[in-house]
């Protein structure tokens, strides 16, 4: 306890999962997340856990479905193209209301794209990705300590709401090294998994069925209404963001994940120049931290969303700001990571132009 260990992002995420009681990991190689399945293949046998290198990402997510249905804490990880393959399975997991944790160490796309960091999977992560009206809880860490803490929380959230949780990282986060501390935190009281398909002998002889098929349209609508009610509870209770220097800010930069770290450096720089700039860093991308925005909207004059994409989260920022203030966008694509100076230059231009 209290010990800080220098670890690579992908490995820290793996260890956090093990510390959270995950004993079933199903993976498939893809850069830049390979260290995660590799780490799990080393660690799982040491803790009496299971690592399976699946034949595909499709198989891996369906193994997660099976293991989660049988009542275990199960995880899979991949990067963008592999996450695309998992979408049908993720939709099934959401539909059948199974707890599971999925890690996406995002790279540039579309198609095979590249292997450098990207944030082009935001839409896929928060707007569905797979078919049907479902939601994932999407958490975006900006440093390794937060990644470790959020993985712990992800398993609890998944169990608590019986919902898949996505950790949205990027190549930068997966590959960097930072000291981390694994804290033994108990976040919530979790209900027993009485619904698990682990054999009648384990749950009093009643047949348990894991299923997402509801052929009767009224039944299916009811099922959907129930899901939406659950999502509404999550929206109410699980918004998470970091707000930096927004009290007197004229402009708030909005950025998540690795980009937010860079934006933070830009904020420090701009503050030294006397410019009143703050940062809103969404940590939960779904639910989008609307409540945090509401604190800032009345006082700032404008927003600048910065992403490693052509502009995806900015749509949610615009929905949230709802025309009250101008929302600007700056993005880099294809694995290009924006430099603090580029972001600062954007801010100077906006603030200069506003005068």
């Amino acid at each position, binding site marked *: 306890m209290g010990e800080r260990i220098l670890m690579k992002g992908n490995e820290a995420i793996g260890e956090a999962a093990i510390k959270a009681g995950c004993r*079933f990991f*199903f993976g498939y190689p893809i850069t830049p997340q390979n260290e995660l399945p590799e780490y799990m293949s080393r660690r799982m046998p040491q803790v009496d856990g*299971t690592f*399976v290198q*699946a*034949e*595909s990402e*499709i*198989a*891996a997510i*369906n*193994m*997660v*479905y*099976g*293991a*989660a*249905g*049988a*009542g*275990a804490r*199960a995880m899979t990880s991949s990067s963008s193209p592999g996450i695309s393959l998992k979408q*049908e*399975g993720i939709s*099934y997991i959401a539909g*059948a209301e199974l707890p599971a944790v999925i890690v996406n160490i995002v790279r540039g796309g579309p198609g095979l794209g590249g292997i450098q960091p990207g944030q082009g999977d935001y839409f896929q992560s928060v707007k569905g990705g797979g078919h049907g009206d479902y939601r994932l809880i999407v958490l975006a860490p900006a440093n390794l300590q937060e990644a470790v803490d959020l993985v712990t929380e992800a398993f609890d959230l998944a169990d608590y709401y019986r919902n898949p949780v996505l950790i949205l990282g990027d190549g930068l986060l997966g590959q960097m090294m930072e000291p981390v501390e694994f804290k033994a935190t108990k976040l919530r009281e979790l209900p027993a998994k009485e619904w698990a*398909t*682990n*054999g*009648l*002998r384990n749950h009093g*002889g009643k*047949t*348990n*069925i*894991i*299923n*997402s*098929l509801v052929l009767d349209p009224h039944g299916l609508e009811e099922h959907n209404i129930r899901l939406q009610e659950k999502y509404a509870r999550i929206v109410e209770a699980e918004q998470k963001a970091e707000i930096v220097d927004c009290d007197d800010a004229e402009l708030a930069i909005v950025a998540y994940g690795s980009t937010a770290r860079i934006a933070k450096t830009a904020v420090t720089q701009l503050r030294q120049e006397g410019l009143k700039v703050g940062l809103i860093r969404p940590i939960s991308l779904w639910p989008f931290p609307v409540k945090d925005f509401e604190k800032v909207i009345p006082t700032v004059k404008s927003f600048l969303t910065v992403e490693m994409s052509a502009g995806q989260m900015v749509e949610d920022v615009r929905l949230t700001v709802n025309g009250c203030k101008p929302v600007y966008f700056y993005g880099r694509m294809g694995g290009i990571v924006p430099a603090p100076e580029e972001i600062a230059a954007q801010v100077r231009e906006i603030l200069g132009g506003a005068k």
Partner: protein
Amino acid sequence: MVKVFERPKALADVPTHYCPGCTHGIIHRLIAEVIDELGIVDKTIGVAPVGCAVLAYNYFTCDMQQAAHGRAPAVATGIKRVCPDSAVFTYQGDGDLASIGCAEIVHAAARSEQITTIFVNNGIYGMTGGQMAPTTLPGDKTTTSPYGRDTSKQGFPIRISEMLATLDGPAYIARVSVHNVANIVRARKAIKKAFEYQLAGKGFTLVEILSTCPTNWGITPIEALNKVKSEMLPYFPLGEIKDIEAGEKK
């Protein structure tokens, strides 16, 4: 009075949705009888496919999971790894297993997952209305091979059991049929052996069962049983294709 025939306890007391003359019902019953006989209903977890048997989760009284199309062997892998002392079976049609789920079945077999797959081969996509399956016989008309399966354009049927038997992973692979009583009895024996091998930890087991689809074949139930015998059997020969206890068979 002595009761000589009753519903197996592993089979739920509900009407099924299967068409008249379809042999899915017989196959369900055989599985349920084996589960009863082995006394394992309280530690069995079944995986239903996407296909006519999708509602199998309502027909067995053991725990059940419904899997995405073709992915039952991956789902079963996840379940069995969590519950190694259970009996886990998948129930899959030929579109499910031999087409979209080809990768999953091959790799579950190669890993020698300790599961039992019941592979129901009726040579057609039943649920979606009679399209060509990978197992559709050459010349057979379906809604997507309306001129008859032309092997020069639509390829040849896959003999899944023989293909999987080339792998080192499987412990037991048999092809059986349910077109008459003698074969139903043999099918039951094969299913039982597969479950027994699984329980003994011998490795992956699969029983392919030739089945009928009178509705989509467009013939009567009796004609359908005859078609299994006269047309399917020559292409899909019956027998124990692999049995690690008996060595390779041909």
